[in-house]
């Protein structure tokens, strides 16, 4: 297998077969949208997690719910990278490709390196299905797959046979065949020595209301396992030992789940009720789904009539003293712009989550991109600054959310949290934090008059000298009745003011408040201390950039890496960091938005490397780009 060091070869006492020990493997499950590939991938991920491997995943599915069966647009895949060391990406190319039909083969085989393992479900390779995706002949017969180790398995009929052996279950042919994804999972679980109890338990719980279907899936899963165990076609099995991660308790988590948990934790740690106003949109909807399940924490979720009502209701709740949250993606963030502007001038806390996807317009709903940075920074009328934060990995969505809420509450401002499709649906092991160690987010509402002139009045726009935040006086507080709105307010008293100097002062004060948000310094990873080139990223590119840097360093070259979580304001030491390196490279999944900001702000002649393919960067690709730049500088 490519890029995989075989650590040692054992012989399995039980089967007499060779057992190869690997340090890492990339598997891609691919099939029709209705074949349950995401579920299969999720289960294998859980098995790998339970076994203690480090892992990273990349789901990749079409925007259509069920494109016509067996067609190329209907192909859905799930790539999983698991290893015995800490890995950073879901892997560039699969070592093993499972293709459930000809469409899945055609759409994915180009990514499989020579020598890779291909497992195909031969039952679906009918003349009709082949023709549907434009195969003239049968690739399983014509020698076009000779570069790979091909395992031809009649998964559909083997699954049906396994289920038919239990006629008392009265499972229909269709339902029996639908369990073929569990056959594939069973086979792969056998090949990689994965634990199986978790999956069997999962299936019985998932189909608790349909015990016969649960049993059919378990039978299929076991049939897949037994197929590997008893047939002679698989000469080798593989072991990937648990990873040596930092001590602690781990779980597997997706970015959307981590982000939702961050919101729950923010409510718990602030003692404030959480109000989520949201409108369903891919790929952000799972945050709404997740939070809807957690009413036990006093969380209110409101599925609004549109994106604007979602953020409007959240802002109304913030006015009332809740943590107002809205979640969206793509065109949804454009619709929320006006209300973000109102929140900026009202100076109320608000968390705005944008799970970025391919744009413009409807764009690529299920694919990832980082192209909303400039919209987050500037996409409103007027001078309208908001803090912007971006998590760097699925698990980091938790901490980034707490950080965003901290800033929103401390500075009474909307905060934009920029996740993306790769983080949202991707997963990784996550060191479960201890609740006691989470930050204290408690806030104090205004309770008394504050006028500096001793008049006994309440001035809603009198600022805290340190943070420049205004008091948060919630309705129900006697004596602090006040009116706020979108019109410009007089400094201090907050009454409508069209006075020229006042507007100039208020615009600058709002900017100064956001500029003054305290964020940690940027940390640079420069192991040799001799690098001339710094690669700077933000958001979900952390994994591929890190993996790319490791490869560059393994080749004996020096490179420094830094990753921005805070995009507004930037860390105070950013300018100094940028000036410390001869060249700065900025890889982004957009056309150079961070590079534009850094050039404007620091006059740094950064090299922008960009790609907008809807998929994360590959480590190999960045290795090439970075190597060329490092060698160019050293030359």
């Amino acid at each position, binding site marked *: 297998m490519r890029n995989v060091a075989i650590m040692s070869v054992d012989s399995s006492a039980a089967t007499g077969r060779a057992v190869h020990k690997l340090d890492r493997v990339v598997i891609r499950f691919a099939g029709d949208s209705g074949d349950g590939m995401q579920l299969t991938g999720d289960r294998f991920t859980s098995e790998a997690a339970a076994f203690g491997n480090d892992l990273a995943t990349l789901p990749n599915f079409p925007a259509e719910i069920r494109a016509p069966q067996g067609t190329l647009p209907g192909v859905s895949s799930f790539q999983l990278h698991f290893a015995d060391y800490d890995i950073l990406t879901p892997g560039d190319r699969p070592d093993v490709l499972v293709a459930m039909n000809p469409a899945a083969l055609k759409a994915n085989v180009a990514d499989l390196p020579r020598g890779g393992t291909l497992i195909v479900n031969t039952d679906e390779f009918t003349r009709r299905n082949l023709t549907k995706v434009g195969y003239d002949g049968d690739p399983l017969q014509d020698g076009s797959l000779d570069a790979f180790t091909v395992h031809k398995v009649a998964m559909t009929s083997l699954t049906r046979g396994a289920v038919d052996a239990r006629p008392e279950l009265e499972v229909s042919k269709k339902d029996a065949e639908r369990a073929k994804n569990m056959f594939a999972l069973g086979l792969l679980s056998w090949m990689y020595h994965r634990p199986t109890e978790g999956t069997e338990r999962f299936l019985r719980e998932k189909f608790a209301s349909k015990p016969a279907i649960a049993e059919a899936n378990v039978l299929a899963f076991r049939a897949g396992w037994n197929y590997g165990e008893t047939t002679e076609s698989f000469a080798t099995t593989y072991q990937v030992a648990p990873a040596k991660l930092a001590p602690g308790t781990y779980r597997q988590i997706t970015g959307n789940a981590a982000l939702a948990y961050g919101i729950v*934790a923010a409510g718990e740690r602030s003692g404030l009720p959480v109000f989520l106003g949201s409108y369903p949109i891919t790929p952000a909807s799972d945050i709404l789904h997740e939070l809807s399940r957690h009413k036990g924490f006093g969380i209110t979720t409101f599925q609004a009539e*549109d994106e604007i009502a979602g953020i409007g209701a959240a802002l109304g709740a913030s006015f009332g003293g809740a943590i107002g949250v809205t979640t969206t993606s793509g065109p949804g963030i454009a619709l929320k712009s006006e209300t973000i502007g109102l929140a900026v001038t009202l100076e109320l806390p608000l968390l705005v989550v944008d799970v970025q996807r391919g744009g413009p317009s409807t764009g690529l709903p299920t694919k990832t991109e980082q192209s909303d940075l400039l919209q987050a920074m500037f996409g409103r009328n007027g001078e309208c600054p908001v803090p912007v934060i971006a998590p760097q990995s699925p698990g980091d969505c938790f901490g980034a959310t707490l950080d965003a809420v901290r800033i929103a509450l401390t500075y009474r401002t909307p905060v934009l949290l920029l996740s993306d499709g790769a983080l949202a649906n991707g997963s990784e092991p996550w060191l479960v934090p201890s609740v006691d160690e989470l930050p204290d987010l408690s806030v104090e509402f205004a309770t008394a008059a504050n006028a500096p002139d001793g008049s006994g009045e309440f001035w809603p726009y009198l600022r805290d000298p340190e943070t420049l935040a205004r008091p948060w006086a919630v309705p129900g507080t006697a004596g602090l009745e006040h009116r706020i709105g979108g019109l410009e307010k007089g400094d201090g008293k907050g009454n409508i003011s069209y006075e020229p100097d006042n507007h100039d002062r208020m615009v600058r004060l709002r900017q100064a408040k956001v500029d003054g948000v305290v964020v940690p310094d940027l940390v640079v990873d420069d192991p040799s201390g001799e690098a001339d080139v710094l690669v700077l990223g933000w958001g979900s590119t952390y994994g591929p950039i890190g993996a790319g840097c490791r490869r560059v360093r393994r080749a004996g070259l020096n490179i420094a890496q830094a990753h921005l979580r805070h995009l507004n304001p930037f860390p105070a030491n950013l300018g100094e960091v940028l000036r410390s390196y001869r060249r700065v490279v900025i890889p982004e999944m957009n056309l150079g938005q961070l590079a534009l900001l850094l050039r404007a702000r620091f006059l740094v002649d950064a090299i922008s490397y960009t790609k907008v393919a809807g998929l994360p960067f590959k480590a190999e690709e960045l290795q090439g780009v970075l190597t060329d730049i490092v060698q160019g500088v050293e030359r």
Partner: protein
Amino acid sequence: MTAVELGLPAIGALDGVPTTDQKQTAKDFTSDQEVRWCPGCGDYAILATMRGFLPELGLRRENIVFVSGIGCSSRFPYYLDTYGMHSIHGRAPAIATGLSVSRPDLSVWVVTGDGDALSIGGNHLMHALRRNVNLKILLFNNRIYGLTKGQYSPTSEVGKRTKSTPFGSLDHPFNPVSLALGAEATFVARALDSDRRGLSAVLRAAARHRGTALVEIYQDCPIFNDGSFDVLRRGEDAESRLIPLEAGAPIRFGKDGALSVVREGFGLRVAKSDEVAESEVVVHDPADLQLAFALSRLSDQDLTHAVTGVFRSVSRPTYDDAVRAQVAGVREAQPGDLGKLLRGRDTWTVA
């Protein structure tokens, strides 16, 4: 998807909003801000009525919130010494929904206009009514855009000449009461800005209604649509145009009750009282949706007739009460445990 029995609570109109025994006056509800509407604007009369009416509720001033959108009417909150938010064009019902759902101890009012509520904010108005959020929505209808200096609105009559329609407007107008009834409103009423008694009566009824109450207020814009409702205020036939509603009473109006409302087909018509039998005169029932709708259709765009009072008032569980009950129920049955949530079901330990 399955439906479940929700077991919703029945709650009184202003239950949960703290009251006060201290005597309140209109002055207590008057903020220190100078009122900046044009001289002669109908908004002055509505503001005066509101300031005079609010003390009657006996609520603590700090527990009353006015939320508005954009437009002349939406300056309203600045002039009341309660909590207030002057928000975004059309979005006040959405913002007020978030506030109302999260704060059962507040009496939340929305002030909006015909452009704000029915044009840019039509979607939010419709959905607030459908959900039956505990909001009192006051729709000041002057049938014109005032703040932008005189363009036709979604309630302007066809053919209206305005700055943006120099050859006459081609838009067919909304009937706001019909619209609200079609949007599942549980309370719909109408009043005239200058009719202090009638306006106070519908405000009173609206305040006592738990759920979304829509009150359409005919309001004059003396600058861009001057005298638009004058035929209902003065002149000999004003009495024969206005049809005031009273629950349980036969709908008679005009001088000495000379006119009556009677059924005709699926709708209603106006008849001379002496030409119809007493039994034919429709008795107003605010619980009868079909009657309410038919009454709303009696109100012509040209004001030949204008029905005022409470068209519809029925009890239906409110959205905000239901949301809170559901959260409280889950909280009681399965209280959140953050540590447990974060650990999830499958963990492993690295030593």
